């Protein structure tokens, strides 16, 4: 009986409409994208960059090839030479195909010196395919563009210094923590 009365009095519809009416007076949650931008949280996995070492002015990369080896989509290509006297490796070219990258963040996690980073930058779509194949110069330029508007003095990334991982699983440099000083 009760159900029939409810049905005839449109109680179900009135209940629904009252909910929509309540929401009608709330502030909208929509972000008007090109005009206003969403806030990105630290360590968002966005555009790739090679960190410019403030001491030498060049990339920090030591050409250990770990990122090339660990990349699941095989989008990193590195060339290097070895100094026969000292045995040190020198980077010749470093190429990332951003179109093949799956943004898993394994490269920045495995890097022993914190040379590669996925920056908090997501607006880099292009109609030109070549513009999305980053060579060493483009990657360093990405870093400069990103760090130019970075508010703080020291940059660090969550994936360089993984929190909560047992100490025995970290390399020597990572136990101390990897940071980049931008400004004095």
């Amino acid at each position, binding site marked *: 009986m009760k159900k029939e009365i409810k049905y005839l009095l449109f109680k179900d519809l009135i209940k629904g409409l009252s909910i929509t009416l309540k929401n009608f007076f709330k502030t909208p949650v929509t972000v008007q994208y090109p005009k206003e931008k969403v806030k990105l949280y630290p360590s*968002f*996995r966005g555009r790739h960059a090679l960190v410019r070492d403030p001491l030498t002015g060049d990339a920090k990369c030591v050409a250990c090839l770990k990122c090339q080896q660990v990349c*699941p989509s095989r989008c990193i290509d590195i060339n290097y030479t070895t100094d026969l006297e000292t045995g040190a490796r020198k980077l010749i070219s470093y190429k990332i195909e951003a179109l093949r990258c799956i943004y898993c*963040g394994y490269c920045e996690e495995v890097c022993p010196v914190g040379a590669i980073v996925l920056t908090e930058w997501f607006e880099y779509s292009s109609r030109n395919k070549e513009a999305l194949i980053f060579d060493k110069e483009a990657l360093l330029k990405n870093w400069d563009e990103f760090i130019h508007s970075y508010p703080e003095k020291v940059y660090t990334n969550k994936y360089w210094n*993984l929190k*909560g991982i047992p100490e025995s699983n970290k390399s020597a440099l990572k136990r101390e923590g990897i940071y980049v000083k931008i400004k004095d």
Partner: protein
Amino acid sequence: MLEKRLSSNKYIYYPQDPFYSPLEIQMGPQHPSTHGVLKLKLLLEGEKIIDLEPTIGFLHRGIEKLAENLNYAQVLPLTDRLDYISAMNNNTGYALAVERLLGIEPPPRGKYLRTLVCELARISSHLLWLATHALDIGAMTVFLYCFREREEILNFFEKICGARLTVSYPRIGGVRLDIEDQVLEEIYNFIPKMHEKIEEYEGLLSENRIWLDRTVGVGVISGEEALAYGLTGPSLRGSGIAYDVRKHFPYDAYSEVDFEVPIGKNGDTYDRYWCRLQEMRQSLKIIKQCIENLPEGPVSSELSPDLDMPLYKRAITAESWGESAFISFLTESAPIVPKGELYSAVEGAKGELGFYIVSDGSGRPYRLHIRSPSFIHISALKKLSHNHLIADLVAIIGTLDIVMGECDR
């Protein structure tokens, strides 16, 4: 009156035309309500479906074959792309299978964090399901409300690990990095808010006469038939069978938290809807317990394999430098992973998500098979939609919660 109206099946009456012949119609693959690239060949008698044949494979990316060329750690980001709506569950399922193969166990904090993010992903998946299901049936408002809350959950994921959909957060032997206290607090404050929102969706739909007309008595499947078709997850529980991997074969921290498994009675679209809404409440309950009882300590096991795990273990001594080191790399002297095969399942958002791994002792899986619930649920479409109208087919596809990324792999 309501019961009488609902019980009378109004879809049975059709004019008997002597010149009648069934009509064949292709639905999809580019159709807004097939939820992805699913193609259906329908045989119609008037507007009534008498036969149905699904065609799949439009989103095939060969993940199982790709996995054979990558090491165990590298396969994990690929599993994000299976059921891209609840990537945390896929990661956990795969990581759990490899952990069982390797014989390692994550530390308690890692277990609890994995449970927490899995339940968040389940809520996000159910929200997306409710949104699209309601939109298919004609309730536009619920779609907008659900996406509003889903956005908050995706923001939590971004704060935790830096990605919103393809998270790669759980890893073999625990989770990738620790969660910040501030984020935990935000998630804790989100729980009562989410309870209110679920009540809001229920207020819009549960008693609504249009919603009842479109869902009650549509796509009925009995418990035995559902078992015979291999349905799992909420699709099975709607038919009254309380099978849940989290309860029956507990993994991670599910044995330590208290929750119930909601079951339906009639096995129709409405009961499956009801089950999923209750499941969201239970997930919130699990999240609350996880945050309250979160133990301290490391989040990842010390034995968890490196990302660049080698194919075979090699012992490099002073003598073995040079050519002999290269030879020892090629010979399979010490297997890095035990030989054998293993099946391990988790309760994904859609149903039982299983990973079957065959190991030949090297650092790569010899064969990886994924038992994806969506693939198996599609086989039940014919049974569910028999003698229904085309308009109801949309509701039936929605109620099974199919994701084509998982189905085609």
